[in-house]
């Protein structure tokens, strides 16, 4: 199997001089600074010769002291090998600009748009560089740059001015000073996301068509995001997606909190998956610190993360079923009741139902309470029989198969190309699971299967989710048998200031591959935290999937992705 050093030497031999700086962290991590002119060629080389077919995301970093910006492209492979290449491209801070990878990787679109609106790094050749998460008024403020002073400007105390737009809406803006206009540092012509009326004028071709909202306020959405569908009768002709309705700027907030305080923010990214988010952040920091986690703590983490996966899958599936069957659908209530048992188990350990803040650098916050294993052994067999019952129920229901089978099918190749994650990818038949691909904690010692589907449709997504619950139960049972006694926190002292360094850590979130890229400059706060969320990755694929389906199917497709806009917007 390909390892990181092989990849590095291959790049170096194919493009002499392209690699400016490199570091092979382990067999699975390659850090390389690539000449910004050669990045496209290097990526082409990697994807054709080394199966780097998974564009996992990209992060922008503002190195204000070095007067340069950095874009980190995170490349991986869908199972061909386990190397994650972190390719850095440097660009000067004045007029930063790098080449866009959208031509090579379809899903680079959103990641680059986000970096552009947050850091002001231009992407040459990007087809639609307009705001994704921010509102139009904030464009040009580049809020994630290190010299951003807040909005409104906190240093001058200048308030934003209220402006009434020609179409009657109110906008808030800090008008540029003449000096700024002259220097060209402010953006005057902002590329604007079309408003609803503009889009109606643009897209509607005949009287029989109309644009209908499925969000941000709609019974279908699991959290606020805008999904407009252009319908002709019952058929969806085109879908428009806009996210950013609950953009909280968590990545930026974490830069202003101490290392430990950051953990609480990871909870809030997606509250049904807060334990895996905790794990992802803590794991990355542990990697920088070089901490070894005691065995018992590792087992506790695995047990809780798997419990958390079960409860997330239950509510994700249950909520989705109500979208197709109505709120009176009884199995949804059963799932919620069952989930309550799992939540109680987690609560008995962490003391919280949803936002746990439980994982610590080098361990966990507290030990398992007495009688936890017995309690688990009571609940898990029950969960298992219930889940098997659900699987059987859906397999037998003819209306279920009418509504779910071959709805929103994604073939394996498309799913890989579009960078889907989690259940959507696995339902398409791609066995891609971070617990196998990038094993952490005690996962390599445990026996479990990666559940895959065949057709990649809504029915498969539900089936994969339910069978994953069974795998999780199996994992927890093994952990309970094997968990050793011992310390739950590392003996080593955890410094307030984390030494300079960087790490990329991946976990299998209930929704798929979640990665966190954490940079420390040696201070008591992270220099940059980049979250690569699984639903953000899957979310992009929604619009092409909705073209040509019925309105009812649009709901069945969007719901089956187990969405969490809160995590996508961060």
């Amino acid at each position, binding site marked *: 199997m390909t390892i990181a050093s092989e990849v590095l030497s291959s790049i170096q031999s194919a493009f002499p001089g392209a690699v400016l700086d490199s570091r092979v962290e382990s067999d699975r991590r390659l850090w390389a600074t690539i000449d910004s002119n050669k990045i496209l060629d290097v990526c082409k080389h990697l994807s054709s010769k080394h199966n780097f077919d998974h564009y996992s995301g990209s992060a922008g970093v503002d190195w204000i002291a070095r007067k340069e910006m950095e874009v980190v492209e995170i490349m991986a492979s869908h199972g061909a090998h386990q190397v994650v290449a972190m390719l850095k491209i440097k660009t000067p801070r004045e007029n930063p600009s790098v080449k866009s990878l959208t031509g090579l990787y379809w899903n680079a679109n959103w990641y680059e748009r986000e970096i552009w609106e947050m850091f002001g790094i231009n992407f040459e050749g990007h087809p639609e560089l307009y705001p994704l998460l921010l509102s139009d008024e904030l464009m040009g403020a580049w809020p994630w740059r290190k010299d951003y002073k807040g909005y409104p400007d906190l240093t001058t105390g200048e308030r934003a001015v209220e402006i009434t737009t020609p179409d009657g809406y109110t906008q808030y803006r800090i008008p540029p000073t003449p000096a700024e206009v002259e220097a060209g540092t402010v953006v005057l012509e902002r590329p604007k996301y079309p408003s609803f009326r503009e889009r109606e004028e643009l897209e509607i071709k005949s009287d029989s068509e*109309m644009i*209908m*909202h499925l969000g941000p306020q*709609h*019974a*279908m959405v699991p959290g606020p995001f805008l999904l407009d569908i252009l*319908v002709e*009768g*019952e058929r969806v002709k085109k879908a428009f997606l806009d996210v950013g309705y609950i953009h909280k700027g968590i990545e930026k907030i974490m830069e202003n909190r101490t290392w430990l305080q950051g953990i609480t923010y990871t909870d809030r990214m997606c509250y049904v998956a807060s334990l895996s988010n905790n794990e992802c952040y803590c794991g990355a920091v542990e990697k920088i610190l070089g901490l070894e986690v005691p065995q018992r703590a590792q087992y506790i983490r695995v047990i809780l993360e798997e419990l958390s996966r079960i409860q997330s899958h239950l509510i994700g599936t249950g909520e989705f*079923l*109500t*979208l*197709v*069957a*109505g*709120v*009176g*659908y*009884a199995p*949804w*209530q*059963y799932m919620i*009741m069952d989930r309550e048992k799992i939540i109680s188990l987690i609560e008995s350990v962490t003391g919280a139902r949803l936002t746990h803040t439980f994982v610590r650098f080098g361990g966990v916050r507290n030990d398992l309470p007495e009688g936890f294993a017995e309690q688990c052994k009571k609940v898990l067999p029950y969960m298992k029989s219930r889940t098997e019952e659900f699987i059987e129920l859906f397999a037998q*229901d003819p*209306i*279920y198969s*009418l*509504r779910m089978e071959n709805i929103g099918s994604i073939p394996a190749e498309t799913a890989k190309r579009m960078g889907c994650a989690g259940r959507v990818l696995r339902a398409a038949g791609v066995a891609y699971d971070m617990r196998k691909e990038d094993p952490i904690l005690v996962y390599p010692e445990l026996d479990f299967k990666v559940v895959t589907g065949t057709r990649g449709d809504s029915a498969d997504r539900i089936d994969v989710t339910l069978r994953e619950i069974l795998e999780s139960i199996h994992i927890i049972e093994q952990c309970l048998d094997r968990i050793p006694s011992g310390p739950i926190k590392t003996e080593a002292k955890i410094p307030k200031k984390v030494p300079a360094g960087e790490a990329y850590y991946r976990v299998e979130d209930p929704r798929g591959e979640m990665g966190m890229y954490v940079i420390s400059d040696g201070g008591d706060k992270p220099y940059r935290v980049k979250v690569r969320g699984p639903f953000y990755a899957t979310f992009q694929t929604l619009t092409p999937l909705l073209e040509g389906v*019925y*309105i*009812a*199917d*649009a*709901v069945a497709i969007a719901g089956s992705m187990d969405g969490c806009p809160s995590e996508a917007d961060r």
Partner: protein
Amino acid sequence: MDGIIEIITQFAADEPAVFALIIGIIGAAVISGVVNVGAMLVIWGERKVLSDFCNRYGPNRVGGRWGILQLGADAIKLFTKEDIIPGDADKAVYVWAPIVASMATMLVAVAIPFGALHINGKDYPLVVANMDISALYVEAALSLMAIAVFMAGYSSNNKYSILGAFRGIARMIAYEVPMGVCVISVAVMAHSLNLVEIVESQTVWYVFAQPLGFVIFVIALITDLGRIPFDQSEAEEEIISGYNTEYSGIRWGLLYFQEYNNALLGSILLSLLFLGGWHGPIIPIPILDIISPLIWLFMKVVIVLWFFIWVRSSLFRLRIDQVTNFGWKWMLPLSLLNLGWAVLIGSYFA
């Protein structure tokens, strides 16, 4: 008892016009009371039974453990809520839609026998207008609800509502025909279109005589009532309650209420046509023997309603194209097949 009936019969014979007027007025008061109170109980029952299916409590605060006064509280809320009419709505149609819906239900209720009193070995049906064509009339009046739905959806000037209205009409056209054919099959077997006579002719319940017709009628009835799996015109999760998205306060309450009125009347109709109506063994206890037909019909209606709720809690909603496909390609041919069967078997029953 005999004396009273004799006096009434004498009066009806002497002054038919006055008698009809008195019966009409009493009947109007009684049926609006019975239907509306019945619908309230249906709503309460649906909430309770659905909660049972879903493993939760349902209303359990207002009016004691069983939450029996919940609906009263809801009604007070609906009456006192602000009545909002959207600015761009077609006001007249918008305002009239709930009224038309109410009228449609009452028109159905007029011709439906609500049971019978068993006096001296003879059944006296409780029906306001005992028409010769009441089965056909009821079937026609039931479909008036679709017009109210379309009025509400069209006049709201809302995209969800208009889609809901379209779906309602598409569904109604696809399912009224098989439903009508089923009613005709029953009428063929009973040699009458009069609901009272249809019930009286059921020495063998028609559910056994024409099981296929029964199944088709039940499916078509669920469609007509707009319940899951056929509630595409409402479909909260897709088109936000569809045709009544814009309605609020008591106007919404009226529309909502009519659905349950219809559910009640529909299940009575089903019991009358296929389940032997008020037929059943007479309970040999004084007074109870008089109302025992009523008790039997009531029990049948409760079972039918319970079945509807059971369906709601266990099935998925079909897509509108699947519904119309199923209606035209399966229900209509099968209902015609059933009509043929009814004609064949009907000669035996005659």
